[in-house]
Structure formats: structure tokens, C-alpha cells
């Protein structure tokens, strides 16, 4: 079965610290992986994706993510963290739903609080 797991529902850290949000996936084929961010009361914004090639991908807002096939993970990183990074972060996996369509399976999300 295809699934995405974000084991940390809430993460709190101090401004200036390094952040790493965890994401693991289960999928039998080569994964396409995405990170999105949702600020309070707002919609989702795309941060970055991994398709193939370099295992470290860079995205918007200073974020990067590392794909590790060995442990099926795609962790999001940023250093240093800023108070404006406080938001909910979703990891997503693209899975083949039919011969002509792929869909996104989202993790539960991690709420990040960056405190002064």
C-alpha cells in the first residue's frame, strides 16, 4: 500500500536553530516526493520536489530536502529557522492511480512553531 508518514505532529524550536522535519513513505515504485507548506488560515504552497537525480533538492524559502532510498525518507531541512517559518508542513507522494492518472497522497502534516 502507498502511504506517507510524518511522525512528528508538532515541532517547536528556537529561532536560529536548524530544523528538520521527518517524512517516510511506502511505495513499490520509484517515488516522486513533494513538500508543501500551509500558513495559518491559508492554502498550500509548493516548496520542493524530488523526481530523480540529486538526492538533495533545493526549493523556495531557503528549504532543502534529502531523499534517502535506504530508509525511504524525504526529510525537510532549513538552517537557520526563522519565526516566519511557523506553519504546517505536508509531505506528499505521487502514486499511480490509473493508466492515465497519478494522485498525491499526503502525510498527516507537522505543525512547526519557531519561537524567539
Amino acid at each position, binding site marked *: 500500500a502507498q502511504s506517507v508518514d510524518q511522525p512528528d505532529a508538532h515541532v517547536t524550536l528556537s529561532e536560529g536553530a536548524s530544523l528538520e522535519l521527518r517524512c517516510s513513505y511506502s511505495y513499490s515504485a520509484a517515488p516522486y516526493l513533494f513538500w508543501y507548506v500551509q500558513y495559518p488560515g491559508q492554502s498550500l504552497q*509548493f516548496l520542493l520536489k524530488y523526481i530523480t537525480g540529486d538526492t538533495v533538492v533545493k526549493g523556495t524559502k531557503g528549504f532543502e530536502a534529502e531523499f534517502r532510498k535506504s530508509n525511504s525518507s524525504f526529510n525537510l531541512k532549513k538552517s537557520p529557522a526563522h519565526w516566519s517559518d511557523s506553519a504546517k508542513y505536508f509531505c506528499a507522494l505521487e502514486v499511480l492511480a490509473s493508466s492515465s492518472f497519478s494522485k*498525491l497522497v499526503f502525510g498527516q502534516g507537522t505543525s512547526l512553531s519557531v519561537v524567539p
Partner: protein
Amino acid sequence: AQTIHQWPVAEIKAVGSPLSLGCTIKGKSSPNLYWYWQATGGTLQQLFYSITVGQVESVVQLNLSASRPKDDQFILSTEKLLLSHSGFYLCAWSRQGSSYEQYFGPGTRLTVL
């Protein structure tokens, strides 16, 4: 640049009443279009997708229906709302094919009383 607009911004409706939510994408021809539902504080659940005008596929059955009357328009509707329909409805688009990121609209917040 592509823009995605959703209407209304918010709705408060009674149980059993009908609902119609809309989504328009400008600046992109023949996009894939998607409807998602998000419970308060929850994750996203894909409801429908469409790859072309007049064609809509259901991903999850929630007593909702969707239509794509024009290339740039996606409509979500139901004839009878349930309490469980409350939440945040998001429309998204992507380029056709796989591995392309989805871009989300601002969303419609629905409260069913």
C-alpha cells in the same frame, strides 16, 4: 503567470441544503484540475480530478459531485449537505503528466450547521 481563483471564500450552510463551489484557472491551457477536502487541523484528501473538459473521475465518495464545464473551470457540488461536509475545500491545478507539482487555490471554508 497562472492564477487560480475559488469562490466563495466562505460559506455557512444548513444541513440538507445544496452547495456549489467553483474554481477558475487563468493563464494555463488544458491543466489537470483537482478538488481536495481538508478537515480542520487535518490532512488533505483528494476528492476528484479532471484531465479534460467534460471528464471527471472520483477518488473518494463523500456524497459530492464535480464537473468541468470549461477548460478553465471546475465545479464541486451536492444536493444535500451533511455535517461531515464541513471543512476547507481546495482546488488545485498541474501540468498534464506525472511528476508535476500541484498549485493550490486560496480555498473555500465551509461550515455546515
